[in-house]
């Protein structure tokens, strides 16, 4: 009676005994691959943020430099100041000509190579920091090198190196810009 009722039961057991380890192995493999993908994604985003921030600072800087009337760069700080002169005629009767200058400043906050150091971009009258690097949700960065050199007559050479605090990867880019309207050029 018993034998007739459970005939073929051994097959189900054998099938299960083979399939279960296979399933466990596959599940484990999938979990590992899934974790790896999340990890790669995290690294990739952090790298992308790093690359983007270096490129963004350099391209802004080049854009600002092209129209600058004067430039003052301090390598120790590091601090970079562009000045643009805007001349306004305030009163036609008095004939008084007021000249006011406008400055744009790139300044490092937090110290070179220090955790969370970032580049602030501001007008000199405003003392509020306006960070253009760091504080990114996808990966914090720090500035490890920000250097200025005077090349030819009116050519500013900039080197910027930043490091991601998530991956530890460093990226360094250098460029130079010719400033046609530059009248005074000081690099300390």
């Amino acid at each position, binding site marked *: 009676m018993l034998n007739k009722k459970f*005939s*073929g039961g051994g*097959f*189900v057991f054998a*099938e299960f005994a083979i*399939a279960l380890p*296979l*399933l466990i192995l*596959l599940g484990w*493999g*999938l979990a590992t*691959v*899934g974790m*790896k*993908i999340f990890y*790669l*994604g995290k690294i*990739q985003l952090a*790298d992308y943020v790093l*690359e983007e921030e270096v*490129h963004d600072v*350099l391209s802004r800087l*080049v854009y600002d430099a092209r129209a600058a009337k004067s430039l003052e760069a301090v390598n120790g700080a590091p601090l970079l100041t562009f000045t643009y002169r805007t001349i306004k005629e305030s009163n036609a009767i008095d004939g008084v000509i007021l000249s006011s200058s406008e400055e744009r400043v790139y300044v490092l906050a937090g110290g070179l190579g220090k955790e969370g150091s970032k580049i602030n971009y501001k007008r000199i009258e405003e003392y509020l920091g306006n960070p253009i690097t760091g504080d990114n949700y996808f990966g914090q960065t720090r500035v490890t090198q920000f250097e200025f*050199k005077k*090349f*030819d*007559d*009116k*050519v500013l*050479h900039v*080197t910027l190196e930043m490091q991601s605090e998530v991956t530890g*990867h*460093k*990226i*360094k*880019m*250098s*460029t*130079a*810009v*010719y400033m*046609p309207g530059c009248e005074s050029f000081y690099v300390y």
Partner: protein
Amino acid sequence: MNSLKNQRGFMLLNVIILTLITSFAAMILLNAAPRIKNPQAAIRLTAIHLANEKFALIESKAASGVFDLNCPINSEDLTTENFSEGNQIEFTVSTTDNPSGNLHRVTVKVEWTVEGRKDFVEVERTIRVVE
């Protein structure tokens, strides 16, 4: 034999589920592989900034009336280690000129090789030589 006939549905289901799981794993692995090669874009950006450096030097010379394609770039900028896993990538810069009057259409080509694969960027700018 008789007992196997009764388990056909179960075997079929098993084969289908296992195939699905395996193909899913293979699909994920195939998608994950190309992610590692992406940072190539960082090298391209570095090369573009290097080309701009060359332009800045040519423009500066041109503003004083000299047209010189051979002005030397900062030698440190000709190598990069951006996302190169410790290997140094070397850039070679070549410049060609297409003049018409005192306007020069200058093309800067920056070339590099990563793991035997050659790549390059070409940037063009028109520069006026002051007379």
